[in-house]
């Protein structure tokens, strides 16, 4: 690779180009400026000259008429302060100069000073003017002096153009200096920036590509750049990495071939084995030398290759499942794939043949097929079971609907019956009361006892009817869940019980902070029943204790109303929540047997459960949930 000389480097070329552009730009600018400035300054000079000639012509009129040469000398002499004026001469009407030499010629002008040695040989003003015009870049402006349309003389002014050139040179110098200054600054800045973002990374890339070209695939460019340069660096590193991964050395290639578990044959274009790997020898049981030189078709028991052309292999490759014959004569199911080897010029170099032993695959495939069949049968069976389950579900749904309808009818019946029974009961109760009040003295002891029993019976039946009505109302109620402070509600219930039985001293423990989303009215009936029962059944306990608490499990709460009262036999626990079922006699503890059934109904409506634990003489505990569990 030809090394890059300093003059060929991109940095050098870049700055040469930049310098050339700046130089050409400066030249163009100078040329444009100079041309424009020349014309502008020349115009200004001519305008000045014309203005001056007009003024001098005007003020020279009278002295010219009066032939006052001294006054004319004085006029032209006063113009000498301007160095651009080379001469100012007033001529008479016949072209003779009126003003004198030393008044007319501006010996103060630097341009005249340059010419003065040569001017000294002249004494004639016109000859002097001609000499000046010939030897000095100048502009002569003349104007006739006219009075009443009569030309009485001419004023001639010669102006030097040298100042224009000087001004242009000065301006050009400033432009050049400014350009050089700004160019230097720009160049330094551009150099610094370019170096950082372009040339240094480019140099690194160049060095890295040289190293890569020499075969060192581990080379990378570590430089950090920006924009496209960084992209280039990243792409280079990526390419080097890919190359490193994909490019193989001869040894690496040989290792690959050797390590392959699939049989690999390298064939000539006419399908003669040129090289094989170890896996091929192992697969077929031949030695390497036995295989090399053999026509590949002989290794198969079918004419699998006979119909395949070289062009077909080249274009599409070839894949087929076939059987090869091992040296020991056994047949081996294999998967054959062929691919053409084509060089860069497109020439057919050979064929790569790959044999994959598929005997295990075949076995597995057969097993899979059998398993598949079993699975299909199983699926069919499950489908049938699912259909049967569906039918059962439908039956259950029907039964549930029928049951619900029946419950509703029963509730309605209970409500209706209770309601209808109340009227005759009131009659019986009323008349029995009237008898006991009005005819008590007419009855004997036995009669009064009978009336007392009748009244007791009525009262009890009334309670029964009330409880039944309550139960039916509960069944007919719609649940309206609201947040309820259960602790506070329990305290209120206990307070009410205490008010009705002020003489009782009972220790009550109620957990604070118990709350739930429940129907306010219904849950109150639950607590009134449970706490009321606890209150009642601890009547005979020496140190009665009632507890209302909650434990939190599985995201929900289990509430518990517990007492140390009469308790119950667990054998009859399943009857506790059945309507009208009582575990104590009326004379032991009064009650209708509807309370707990109502409680259970309410708990069920909330989606919860209720159960009880107890021991005779030790107390009872009623546990319930309110349908807020996440378990």
């Amino acid at each position: 690779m030809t090394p890059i000389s300093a003059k060929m480097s991109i940095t050098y070329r870049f700055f040469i180009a930049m310098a050339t552009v700046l130089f050409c730009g400066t030249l163009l600018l100078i040329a444009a400026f100079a041309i424009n400035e020349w014309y502008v300054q020349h115009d200004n000079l001519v305008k000045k000259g014309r203005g001056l000639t007009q003024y001098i012509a005007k003020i020279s009129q009278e002295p010219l008429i009066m032939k006052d040469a001294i006054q004319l000398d004085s006029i032209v002499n006063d113009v000498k302060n301007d160095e651009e004026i080379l001469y100012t001469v007033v001529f008479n009407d016949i072209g003779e100069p009126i003003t004198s030499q030393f008044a007319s010629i501006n010996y103060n002008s630097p341009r005249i000073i340059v010419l003065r040695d040569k001017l000294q040989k002249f004494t004639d003003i016109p000859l002097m003017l001609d000499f000046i015009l010939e030897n000095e870049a100048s502009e002569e402006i003349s104007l006739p002096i006219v009075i009443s349309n009569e030309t009485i003389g001419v004023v001639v002014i010669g102006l030097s153009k040298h100042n224009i050139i000087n001004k242009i040179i000065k301006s050009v110098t400033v432009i050049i200096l400014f350009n050089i200054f700004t160019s230097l600054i720009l160049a330094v800045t551009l150099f610094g920036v370019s170096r950082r973002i372009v040339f240094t990374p480019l140099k690194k890339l160049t060095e890295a590509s040289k190293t890569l070209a020499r075969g060192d695939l581990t080379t990378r460019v570590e430089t950090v750049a920006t924009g496209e340069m960084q992209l280039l660096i990243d792409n280079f590193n990526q390419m080097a990495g890919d190359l490193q991964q994909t490019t193989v050395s001869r040894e690496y290639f040989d290792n690959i071939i050797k390590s392959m578990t699939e049989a690999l044959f390298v064939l000539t274009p006419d399908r003669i084995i040129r090289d094989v790997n170890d896996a091929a020898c192992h697969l077929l049981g031949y030695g390497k030398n036995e295989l090399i030189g053999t026509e590949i078709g002989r290794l198969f028991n079918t004419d699998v290759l006979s119909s395949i052309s070289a062009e077909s292999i080249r274009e599409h490759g070839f894949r087929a499942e076939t059987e090869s014959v091992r040296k020991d004569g056994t047949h081996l199911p294999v998967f054959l794939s062929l691919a053409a080897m084509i060089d860069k010029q497109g020439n057919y170099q050979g064929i790569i043949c790959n044999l994959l032993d598929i005997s295990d695959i075949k076995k597995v495939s057969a097993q899979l097929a059998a398993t598949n069949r079993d699975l299909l049968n199983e699926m069919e069976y499950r489908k049938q079971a699912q259909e049967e389950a569906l039918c059962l579900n439908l039956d259950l749904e029907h039964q549930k609907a029928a049951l619900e309808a029946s419950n509703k009818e029963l509730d309605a019946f209970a409500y209706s019956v209770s309601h209808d029974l109340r009227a005759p009961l009131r009659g019986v109760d009323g008349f029995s009361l009237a008898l006991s009040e009005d005819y008590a003295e007419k009855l004997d002891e036995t009669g009064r006892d009978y009336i007392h029993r009748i009244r007791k019976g009525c009262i009890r039946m009334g309670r029964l009817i009330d409880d039944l009505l309550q139960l039916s109302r509960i069944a007919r109620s719609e649940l309206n869940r609201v947040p309820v402070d259960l602790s506070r509600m329990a305290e209120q219930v206990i307070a009410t019980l205490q008010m009705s039985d002020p003489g009782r001293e009972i220790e009550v423990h109620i957990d604070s902070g118990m709350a739930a989303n429940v129907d306010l009215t219904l849950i109150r009936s639950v607590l009134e029943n449970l706490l009321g029962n606890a209150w009642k059944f601890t009547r005979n306990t020496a140190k009665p204790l009632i507890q209302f608490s909650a434990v939190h499990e599985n995201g929900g709460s289990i509430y518990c109303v517990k007492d140390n009262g009469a308790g119950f036999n667990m054998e009859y626990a399943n009857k506790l929540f059945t309507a009208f079922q009582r575990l104590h006699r009326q004379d032991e503890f009064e009650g209708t047997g509807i309370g707990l059934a109502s409680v259970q109904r309410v708990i069920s409506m909330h989606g919860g459960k209720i159960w009880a634990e107890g021991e005779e003489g030790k107390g009872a505990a009623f546990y319930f949930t309110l349908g807020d569990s996440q378990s």
Partner: protein
Amino acid sequence: MVHKISISLLFLCGLFLLHSRDALAATNIGVLLYSEEDRYHSSFEGIRKELAKAGFKEPKVKFIAGNAAGSKAKATELVESFKKERLSLLITLGTNATIIAAREIRNVPIVFSMVFDPIEVRIAKDWKSSGTNVTGVSPRISMSGLVKRLSEIRPAKRIAVLYTPGEKNSEVQLKELQALQEKMAFKVVPVIISRPEDIPQILPEVLPTIDSLYFSGSSIVGSNIPAIVTLAAKANVITFTHLEDLVQNGVMLGVAADPYRLGIMAGKKAAAVLNGVSPAAIPIEFMKTPQLYLNRKTAKTTGIKLPDSLIRNAEKIFE
């Protein structure tokens, strides 16, 4: 009655005292010099001496002097101030001073000295009578006589005249020389000197083209004699003038009226005016026989040998 006389006497004494006071008051004489030329001071000395001789001296006479330092504006200012003074007479020295005074003051007699050509500059209509409140003396000489004297050293072919436009005396002198060009076969080269800077700028251009250099009565020329003479001497150019003080300061040759004697002449006229004679009745005079003045030193540095004819006739030779 005695009482009446006493009062009358007292009244008369008072009148007398008042008159005496007026009589004893000084005669105010204004003096205006245009610039610091020696000739102006010499001329004024002559005037002063002659006035003193005529009895017009201090304290009887009070001189109120002013010097315009070569500025017309200053001269005008001084003239305005003179107007406020109760002058009996105004003496002016120099053409420009006289022109300004004559233009501004018409009710006070003016006696001038050192005005080259009062008719040309229109101060007076005639030498015999100005026709106005002005009279005086002139340093006028014959230019042709001056050129002849010059020719005794070296015939003049090209004579440069240093003059200042606006200073009428120098303009007049230029014109007189120009009038002699054809007759005396020489060429006049006018050279304007309007500021001192013109001398080093223009003279080096002029000198190589001439053989003689005339110094007019320009105040700017007069105040830069040494510089001009030095340059001229290097160029072998003969310098000449009509003013005696310029020869004293370096000009090689001069034919001039003695300013002091001119002053005497002017003083006589001034005395006559103070004695009541109208200036218009007093003719303007000039010296009919000017003197020859030479500067030997300048001749030597110029490389010129002064002819004996000139040396013999010289009134004064400055070394």
